[in-house]
């Protein structure tokens, strides 16, 4: 009953935390790697997030200097504790020579997973940004402090921008490990092409393109930059704008559909979705199922306990020529009662799901439809929504569909749910 390819297995795993596997690093023995490391190591820092009362390390990441004034770029997910629980955590910077110092969080871009912090000890050497795309296969060197093992350099190649991604990412063929998040990926002449952000396993890593660093830095350096708005409010505004942006795109035209049995259902509705299909025909079973799953490959890291920005849906076609109508519906009901995927969150982040159920008739189809909603507590105006529907027109075949939207406004959730259900019809 579960799709064989669970889309979330192939999702990039955030590297700051959680990754325990010690991959053998792809350190090239070449002299230039050593030279690059020696030349730029003083522009790299380790960022430590400490539990405020005990001073114990809660999380480590990397960062790099981008201005003489002590501006440091890192990943949003490295410093997200400072946004969500500023009283529970503090943070410090460790330079390559072991000296430590405090810093302040100036700005962040949760959508592209970037943050800018500033030290108060100026006159640092810093790195330049390279905001233009590189050619595929160009050598790139990623620096950082993996697993708190000290400053390290990893060699790989620039493998182009990720095709079909909701948020632009560079595919980097080196091993980024936990703790390297926020570190720079450099060209051989020492310019930053991207920021280490995520890994999907051996040699498949992701970088945030430097152009987003430039944007964030420019905004931060604007004289009217408002750092005084509460951090959570800034986060909320960013998430709102982001979901408006991609939902606007999705809703701009009718959804692309696919055919499952005698039904037409939403298909690969956007390039950034990955879709999988599968079917099950077993001789000893009295029914057949065909499934279709689509999910966006990106999600947004909000805090250690909460993920957002997810979009996924699945369809299940259930057919039986053998079962009588009562037994068919007993089977069909099992599928309908299955749990839906819900984006990770705990009770400090979201309320409980509430659902409404009704019969809905449209396009000559009658559904049992369920819409469930839960509200974000700290970021008001955002919701997780689950839509489920099962067709009831046939006593030996039916199609069930489940849609999950993580972190969208109510208007977008309902607009999308409307368009989604509205696109389901008999296949002519």
């Amino acid at each position, binding site marked *: 009953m579960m799709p064989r390819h669970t889309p979330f297995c192939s999702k990039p795993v955030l590297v700051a935390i959680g990754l325990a596997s010690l991959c053998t690093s792809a350190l090239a023995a070449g002299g230039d790697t050593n030279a690059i490391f020696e030349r730029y190591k003083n522009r790299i820092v380790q960022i430590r997030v400490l539990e405020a009362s005990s001073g114990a390390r809660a999380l480590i990441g990397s960062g790099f200097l981008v201005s003489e004034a002590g501006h440091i770029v890192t990943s949003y997910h490295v410093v997200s504790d400072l946004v969500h629980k500023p009283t529970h955590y503090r943070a410090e910077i460790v330079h390559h020579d072991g000296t430590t110092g405090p810093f302040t969080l100036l700005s962040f871009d949760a959508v592209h997973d970037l943050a800018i912090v500033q030290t108060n000890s100026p006159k640092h050497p810093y790195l330049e940004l390279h905001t233009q795309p590189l050619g595929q296969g160009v050598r790139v060197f990623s620096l950082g402090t993996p697993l708190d093992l000290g400053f390290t350099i990893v060699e790989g190649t620039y493998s182009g921008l990720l095709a079909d991604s909701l948020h632009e990412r560079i595919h980097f063929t080196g091993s980024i490990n936990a703790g390297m998040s926020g570190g720079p990926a450099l060209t051989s002449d020492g310019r930053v092409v991207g920021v280490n952000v995520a890994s999907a396993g051996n040699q498949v890593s992701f970088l945030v393109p430097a152009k987003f660093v430039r944007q964030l830095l420019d905004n931060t350096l604007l004289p009217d930059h408002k750092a005084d708005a509460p951090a959570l409010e800034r986060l909320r505004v960013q998430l709102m704008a982001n979901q408006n942006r991609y939902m606007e795109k999705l809703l701009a035209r009718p959804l692309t559909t696919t055919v499952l049995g005698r039904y037409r259902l939403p298909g690969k509705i956007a390039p950034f979705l990955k879709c999988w299909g599968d079917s099950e025909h077993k001789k000893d079973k009295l029914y057949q199922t065909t499934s279709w799953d689509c999910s966006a490959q990106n999600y947004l890291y909000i805090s250690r306990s909460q993920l957002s920005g997810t979009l996924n849906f699945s369809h299940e076609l259930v057919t039986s020529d053998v079962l009588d109508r009562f037994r*068919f519906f*007993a089977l069909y*009901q099992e599928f309908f009662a299955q749990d839906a995927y819900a984006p990770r969150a705990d*009770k400090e982040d979201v309320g409980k*799901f509430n659902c409404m159920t009704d019969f*809905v008739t449209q396009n000559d189809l009658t559904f049992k439809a369920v819409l469930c909603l839960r*509200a974000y507590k700290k970021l008001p105006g955002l919701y997780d929504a689950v839509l489920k529907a099962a067709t009831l027109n046939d006593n030996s075949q039916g199609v069930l569909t489940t849609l999950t939207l993580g972190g969208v406004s109510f208007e977008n959730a309902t607009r999308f749910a*409307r368009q989604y259900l509205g696109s389901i019809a008999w296949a002519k």
Partner: protein
Amino acid sequence: MGEMIVIEILDPAGRVRERTRHERLPVTIGRSYQNDVILDDPYISPQHLSLNRDERGEFSAVDLQSENGVFLYPSLKRVEQAALGHETLLRIGRTCLRICTPAHAVASTVIDQSGPHTSRPFLNSAWIFAGMMALTAVVIVLEGYGATYTRVRLVTLLLPALLVVAALSGWAGLWALASRLYAHHSSYFAHGVIAGLATTSLYLLGTVHAYYSFAFSASLSGALLQYTGVTIILGLLLYGHLRLCVLHSPKSLAAIACVVAALIVSLSGLTSYVYTSEFSDDLRYPAQLKPLAFKMVKSATLDDFIERAQGLKSKVDRQAQEE
């Protein structure tokens, strides 16, 4: 006959434990084996009390110089000698005695309004019991068949039915034992029929609830239907069993059955409330699916459905604020 006297030994609750009738006086009472009435109470003297009748025909009780004395109820005054009326209560040692003369008037007869419930030839029949068990088994097999969508194996359908029938037989046995102890007749088959009826009703209630939840997309009223139904069935089950066990009035039995059933159901309701009020990712909605023919309400249009989501939004917003 004129000399006849009745001695009743009472238990602490005042009920008669032993009753002896004496045609000749005096009657002596004590621990010694020479007495007419022998009492094993260690606080009673070997020769404790004597009941006499004087020349004038008056009955009296005389303390035979016992160590612990004779006391008269209700004043509990120690007496050397006491005249006996139609009914006299005495205490000697730790034992309470009632001495009655032939003139003692008994209370008037209580009129039986509950009917002859000690025998129920109709329900307490092996045939009805067998029929009820068969019906229960059939209902369970049918429910099981309707809920399977893999190849049916007879044994997997029959096994739960047989287990339930065995459990019901055991249950009826326990109640029959209670009946035997308190009402002096076991009524085994009647207990079995009552238990079978309740079980079948619970199964049918489950089915009705499933169809109701589907037909009306009802979540709250469906739960209400289920809780009410279970309370009624449990109440009737308990009432039926108790009627066969205890000789109390039907009204008080009904009250007991209602209270116990309501308690059980509210406890289970409370448990499920506690469970569901915990934070979780679970979606709670009536997931029953039945053939479209059982749909009892008009379909909404897509626009109506989406329109109604506004109410859902207000609800989750409120909850997020409260939590």
